[in-house]
């Protein structure tokens, strides 16, 4: 009998110090640092929290880089859509339609196949900025390929928001700027761009939140997790599979994402105060929550 009881008491004695060891072993597991083997048996709550949190590194990585770069591309796209050149308008509008009109899930699959297959059959694809051929194998890795898809996706959605905001810039301000002799670039830089940001900010916050949520799709669609280095949901589904108990790992992911959402809301409220600094108080654009974004 005492022999039987032993493993139980050992598991019980893990406690706080055991959790500290788990953090040392697995906190950076998602980027390949620390213990190689994932826990297989006697999975503790601490292990689930730490590993899923470690996977969150990828979600934050995709989220920040895709919104960071996507923002500027989105500004270019919305300028393209307002351009007097028909060909620019067409190009920008079709890019937006392509990425807003199809599921992100399918985009991931399609992009992965394209990045894998095209170099293999000797097709080189000239994207203007760079060329996809045999030397671009790194695009089949999630860190680059999935980031590229997320970047295009968020740029398309954001440009829709920015286009709307550009049209809502008060005309009087532009007339005043023209009257005071500003060049076209100066008008854009000093009048249109700040106004556009201010008007688009609440909607753009929603876009940022949903982009972070979309990052959970990366390791479920096409791009394989290399050496079991995946994102939060990747580890959560691993635990759900190993423990046959979805009631612990998925709520942990949900909890982490609620935290991320709160951080994003905090960031956007602070920046919104800055963007609206020259606007009379009562007309300030309040950040509002809307649930309007598709993948």
């Amino acid at each position: 009998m005492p022999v039987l009881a032993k493993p139980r008491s050992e598991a019980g004695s893990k406690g706080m110090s055991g959790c500290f060891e788990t953090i040392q072993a697995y906190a950076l597991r998602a980027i390949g640092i620390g213990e190689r083997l994932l826990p297989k048996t006697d999975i503790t709550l601490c292990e689930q929290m730490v590993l899923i949190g470690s996977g969150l590194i990828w979600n934050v990585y995709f989220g920040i880089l895709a919104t960071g770069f996507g923002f500027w591309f989105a500004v270019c796209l919305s300028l393209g859509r307002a351009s007097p050149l028909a060909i620019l308008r067409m190009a920008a509008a079709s890019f937006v339609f392509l990425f807003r009109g199809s599921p992100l899930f399918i985009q991931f699959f399609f992009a992965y196949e394209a990045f894998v297959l095209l170099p293999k059959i000797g097709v080189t694809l000239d994207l203007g900025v760079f060329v996809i051929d045999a030397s671009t194998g790194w695009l089949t890795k999630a860190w680059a390929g999935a980031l590229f898809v997320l970047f295009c996706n968020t740029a398309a959605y954001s440009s829709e928001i920015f286009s709307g905001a550009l049209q809502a810039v008060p005309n009087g301000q532009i007339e005043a700027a023209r009257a005071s002799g500003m060049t076209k670039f100066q008008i854009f830089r000093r009048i249109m761009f700040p106004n556009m940001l201010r008007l688009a900010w609440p909607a753009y916050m929603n876009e940022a939140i949903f982009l972070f949520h979309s990052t959970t799709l990366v390791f479920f669609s096409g791009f394989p997790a290399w050496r079991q280095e995946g994102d939060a949901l990747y580890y959560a589904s691993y635990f759900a599979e190993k423990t046959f108990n979805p009631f612990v790992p998925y709520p942990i992911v949900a909890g982490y994402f609620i935290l991320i959402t709160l951080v994003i809301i905090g960031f956007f409220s602070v920046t919104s105060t800055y963007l609206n600094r020259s606007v009379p108080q009562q007309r300030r654009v309040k950040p509002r929550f809307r649930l309007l974004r598709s993948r």
Partner: protein
Amino acid sequence: MFTVCTDPSLLSGFDWFACYLTTPKHLTFFGSFFLVLLLIVVVAPLALGLGFAAAVASRSGSPFLSLPGRGYVALARGVPDIVFFLFVPIALDQAFEYLRYLMICPDQLGGVWQGNDFIVCSAAKLPLSTAAPIWHSVYGFGLAVISFGIVFGAFAGNVLVGSFKAVPIAQIQTGASFGMTESQIFHRILVPQMWIFALPGLSNLWQILIKATPLLFLLGLQDIVYWARELGSSKTGIYAYPHPDWRLYYFGFLLVFYLALTAVSEAAYKRLMVRLSRGQGTIASVGKATLRSGF
């Protein structure tokens, strides 16, 4: 399918493709597009009903109704929907099996949770292991429909809460001054007028729903993504129709399918909006201003 197809190795060119695209597996692939459409058509009214119930509950004066209503609607915002899609079907499945366990074999040896495993007696399994394969698919599809309904019900609830608030207060006051009861105001004024405000949000939700349908694949259903991967992967000479890795083209086809679905939905939405705006006293019906969906 056709008589010429009896020996595929003799075929070439157009005949080969005609035969290749009409193999039984391809017919199943084409059939699975109807599965996607079926899912959308079944989920939309379910989600609308749930969302309406949640919106009405969250407006209730009693905290026992308003708190669950608000909580349900708010939950959809902070948590990525894909987490729900991975979590809810397993949870539902276990809940159903647990209920059946209570009814059929409550005195099962060792209970349902044995260590980390969830085990019910074979008579309580859903669907029964003796059931025809079709029932396994139907059950899986049913779980998917309920999960989609729950998630999109929360989204729809969010939209409807906003549109209830958008009904001009003067309308409600007029109703009250005519001596209408609360329920009369609700039925005769609030609900009929709210839909026009809800329509942009609901149309957006429809687009989100369309783009969420590839997630069926994650639930283990044999949907279009499953078949695109299956049929597109390279086939060696032992198959009747050998071909290299064609997944890129299959996913390209899915991409076109979704783009077409989006375009058709947008056109239908514009027509519907024009119809419903008649006599509403909004800019759309009174002025000639172009419709901007606002999102």
